[in-house]
């Protein structure tokens, strides 16, 4: 009798069946942007590996509208509208063609941008980049050979930052970044063409 009851117990426990992550209606949309396969020359940011916790928009993707990301974002496709990654890094890949205003903590530009660019920390314009628009930032690094047409406004945060003594902050571990949930939101039209 006792042994029979013990055997029955496992069958009664799954009264609330666990939903596999893939059946979550929100998840497929989140993964869609990063999982679109790109053909031809692919762009892998700096380390050569796409980091966990970084959203990516492939070279065959076109977005018209607003992109708002709460994690690092890499764009290698076509965007028309606005891109905001407050407190995070935005990377514009070499294949990117962006006609948008950009706002992020840090912006790294390899591709082509037409629009105003605003960063709270640093803007890094690589030699192959082409930027037509006004820049507002605390720090700027521009490689020789980069094409830039527009004005640069170094915000006052720079001066206070430079004057302040350096603060050492422990960087979050890769594991912690990887565990952070993806929360990017994209509104507008997303289309993929091969």
């Amino acid at each position, binding site marked *: 009798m006792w042994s029979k009851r013990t055997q029955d117990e496992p069958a009664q426990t799954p009264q609330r069946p666990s939903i596999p992550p893939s059946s979550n209606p929100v998840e497929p949309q989140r993964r869609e942007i990063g999982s679109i396969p790109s053909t031809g020359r692919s762009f892998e940011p700096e380390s050569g590996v796409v980091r966990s916790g970084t959203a990516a928009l492939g070279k065959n993707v076109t977005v018209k509208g607003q992109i708002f990301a709460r994690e690092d974002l890499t764009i290698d496709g076509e965007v028309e509208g606005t891109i905001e990654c407050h407190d995070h890094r935005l990377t514009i890949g070499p294949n990117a063609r962006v006609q948008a205003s950009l706002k992020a903590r840090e912006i790294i530009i390899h591709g082509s941008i037409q629009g105003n660019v605003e960063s709270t920390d640093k803007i890094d314009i690589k030699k192959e980049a082409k930027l037509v628009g006004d820049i507002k930032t605390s720090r*700027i*690094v521009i490689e020789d050979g980069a094409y830039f047409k*527009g004005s640069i406004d170094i915000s006052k945060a720079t001066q206070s930052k430079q004057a302040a003594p350096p603060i050492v902050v422990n960087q979050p571990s890769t594991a912690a970044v990887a565990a952070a949930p993806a929360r990017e939101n994209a509104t507008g039209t997303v289309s993929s063409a091969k």
Partner: protein
Amino acid sequence: MIFGSKGVSAKSESGSGTIVRHSSGFEQFCGAMDTGETQTVLDISGASQANIMFITGLGHRISSDDMLETMEDCFGKDFIEGQQSAAKAQRFLDQALAFPDQSFDGALVWDSLQYLATPVIEQTVERLLRVMRPGGYILAFFNANEKSGRLPVYNYRIQDRKTILQVPRADMTQRSQFFPNRTIEQLFQQAASLKFFLTRGSSREVLIRR
């Protein structure tokens, strides 16, 4: 007025073709920008880290443009020959210095104007004066050597208030034009004043006040 540039010298950095030189014109330009207020400076030698850091380090705002890139885009390999085409000349004028009137307190034109021929140069200077605020300063360099054939094209990088670097622009050379003082005075006849600085090289520096 012609001012002698005592101590003006040019030396080539080994192998690279880069020339380091003292510039009295630039020194005076910096002095003119020291008003205690934030000035807006246009640099048309292409964007560079050195120039951006120097100008913003003085507390000024900088706008970058690359007029030589526009010339290459519109006129092709030979700038002077390309300007013979009215369509190409018009395309250049449509793109060059496309800024609102009275946008800048200072403009670093470097030697870009010396690659323009009549009538494009007159129209470009007219536009340049228009985008400057009254009392604003323009620094321009012109070839002063009548016998020079083709000249290397340089990007100009600021080292300090007195020193500039001339960095060759990807082995590009262009036919030179000779600019006597009288020609420069006529070009900027609408300006309030002109100051000429003689250099030991083949360049003539001019500080123009709008």
